[in-house]
């Protein structure tokens, strides 16, 4: 029971972090059709910016400035890069962001070094908030939950209650029609791209000290965020939310259940020995395959339900 509650909370924190990244990506992907490989790079940049800023003026200003900087980077990428490449089709755009991700990783390595930087949780939040069954729950994780919940609310309100939000929603499902009605769709694109990158940056600011701030963080996080987006389905923020939470829970719960397929088969009276075919596949335990699960899920969903959980159209 205690393991369950603690894992549930941790899974929720991780899931909300994923959602912060995935929400921006899903908006960009469904609107512009661009699979933005550089999205996780913005996450990394957010963490590194926040690290540098927090060294000089503290964590709280960094919480605001770093995402804004990331947003500016995003706007620049969209205006001077993507728009130019757009003429050559979606594949060219995808390749462009892929190259960008490579360059950003190298640039980060060259600016901040190959080793992880000591980006720490601010002292103000560095205490256990409460303890359940003897396990402390750090206040910082609660803070992460709070920020991501606030952001979720803000996005939802922004998309449903403001004029620009309605235009974005329209451009999301009917980009040609929205542009025919006289809305400046390219400017909306820039705005969404910048906002999505800023959100990824914000995720980096609060996720960088929760996980490790290192140059490889983009390439470990990136594929998982793709999985979330594909799983949730294109054009659906709700699907994206559910997929994020699900992925967060799966990844945390996979670590705590030390079982394998062989244990499951043993229940039905089938004992796996060394000589059974595929013995190695059957005896591998769940925590070890934890990292593999998201990709397995992505492959399965793309094969059997290409539009994802709540998607409105095929990926």
């Amino acid at each position, binding site marked *: 029971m205690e393991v369950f509650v603690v894992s549930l909370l941790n899974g929720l924190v991780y899931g909300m972090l994923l959602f912060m990244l995935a929400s921006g990506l899903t908006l960009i992907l469904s609107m512009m059709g661009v699979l933005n490989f550089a999205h996780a790079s913005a996450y990394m940049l957010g963490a590194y910016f926040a690290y540098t800023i927090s060294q000089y003026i503290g964590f709280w200003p960094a919480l605001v400035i770093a995402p804004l900087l990331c947003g500016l980077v995003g706007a620049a990428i969209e205006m001077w890069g993507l728009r130019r490449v757009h003429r050559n089709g979606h594949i060219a755009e995808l*390749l462009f962001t892929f190259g960008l991700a490579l360059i950003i990783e190298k640039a980060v390595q060259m600016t901040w070094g190959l080793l992880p930087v000591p980006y720490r949780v601010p002292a103000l939040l560095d205490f256990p908030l409460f303890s359940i069954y003897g396990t402390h729950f750090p206040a910082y994780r609660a803070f992460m939950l709070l920020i991501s919940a606030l952001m979720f609310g803000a996005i939802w309100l922004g998309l449903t209650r403001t004029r620009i939000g309605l235009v974005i929603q329209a451009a999301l499902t009917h980009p040609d029609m929205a542009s025919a009605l006289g809305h400046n769709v390219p400017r909306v694109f820039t705005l969404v791209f910048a906002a999505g990158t800023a959100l990824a940056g914000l995720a980096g600011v609060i996720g960088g000290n929760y996980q490790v701030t290192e140059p490889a963080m983009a390439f470990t996080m990136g594929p998982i965020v793709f999985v979330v987006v594909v799983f949730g389905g294109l054009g659906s923020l709700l699907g994206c939310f559910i997929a994020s939470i699900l992925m967060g829970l799966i990844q945390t719960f996979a670590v705590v259940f030390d079982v394998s397929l062989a244990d499951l088969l043993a229940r039905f009276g089938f004992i796996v020995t060394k000589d059974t075919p595929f013995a190695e596949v059957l005896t591998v335990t769940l925590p070890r395959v934890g990292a593999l699960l998201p990709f397995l899920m992505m492959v399965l969903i793309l094969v059997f339900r290409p539009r994802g959980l709540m998607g409105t159209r095929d990926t």
Partner: protein
Amino acid sequence: MSLVRRHWVWLLALVVLLAFPFLFFDWSKGRHSGFVLTLMSEIGVMAIFALSYNMLMGQAGLLSFGHAVLLGLGAYCAAHVVNLVKAGTIWLPTELVPLAGGLGGMFFGFVLGWLVTRQRATAFAMITMGLGELVSAAALMFMGFFGGEGGISIDRVMDTSLFGVAYTSPWQVYCLVLAWAFIAAMLMRLQTQTPLGRIANATRDNFERAQFVGYDPRIVRLLQFTLSGFFAGIAGGLYVLIYEIVTFDTVSAAKSANALLAVYIGGAGGFFGPILGTIVVVLLQSGVSLLSNAWLLYVGVLFIVMVMYAPGGLIGLIFMHVPIWRIGRLRELLLPYARAFPPALMVMLGFVLLVELLSFTTIGAAQGKKFAIGGNVIDTTAPLPWLIALAALVLGALWIRREARGFRERWDALIEDAKRQGVVS
């Protein structure tokens, strides 16, 4: 004689490639330069790999992010086969080990292809990326087939050669790689002219119409993917013979990215583009990485520049000159090129200097290396080198903008003339 006349390019390439290592032959010791031979063998293997990638990306318009899976699985199959031959369980000539890798790659190409070819475009890219991550995670997990982190090592000297060659020296291995590279390249070249190759082009160019004509695009994609797996597997088999070990990084995303970068930089679609791109990428990878930490950055920047300004790749840039050459006015471009050369060089040097300064202040300092040009150690913390680099970059960029205008005018005029003479449609 007609054979020679029709295929003189291939024969010439073969002769040049056989002769090239002798430029680096150490006559005093009477042996080849191991570095050059390994580098060229690597280029050979990666060229096969890039060409097999091009069967997907160039011919069928399928952008895969997990192509190394086929290379790696082919390599693992070949490694297991070699070990079985060594143990005496089966008999197979050393020369045919790449074929074993190819069959392994073909098998996995069919199985994985059955999963992935339901999709195309972005979804195909994602699902191949997912498979790539899946296989590279599995490679570390399952010891039996993949051998975990240590990988699977082999001994390529197995006394079963058809020609009585022991394959103890890099030269012998290089010859084998070259032979296979030629066989594979020719087969892939022929494949582009088969009905399957043509229909693959059709599904790339117009998906709906190919369906209307009566072909199932999925079957076309599946066949193309399987064949591509065969050739990637051949590359994997050769990889095993060169390095005598196969580890999980043969299936990694980085290897897949290498193929993508090589094909795109060289020019997808055409046949010689991927080869050219492979040469560029491998040379940057092996040559520049000795001097600098930032080789991937240069490849990345080159890639982005290609995506933004030259979607046809290097080969596309070369072929743009063909109409002007046909009307015999190519030499009029000499002067504009000569004028654009100094600012281009300036931008490049400025950029490289800036990158290296940055890289040596962080990574280089951490590794205890010093930045030196021609023996002079440069203090990367002093402002002067940074200023020089920045000035070269900015001034060069401004200058090249000025030159570009004149160049474009000249170019447009020449192309216009070519159009008038009817060599361009």
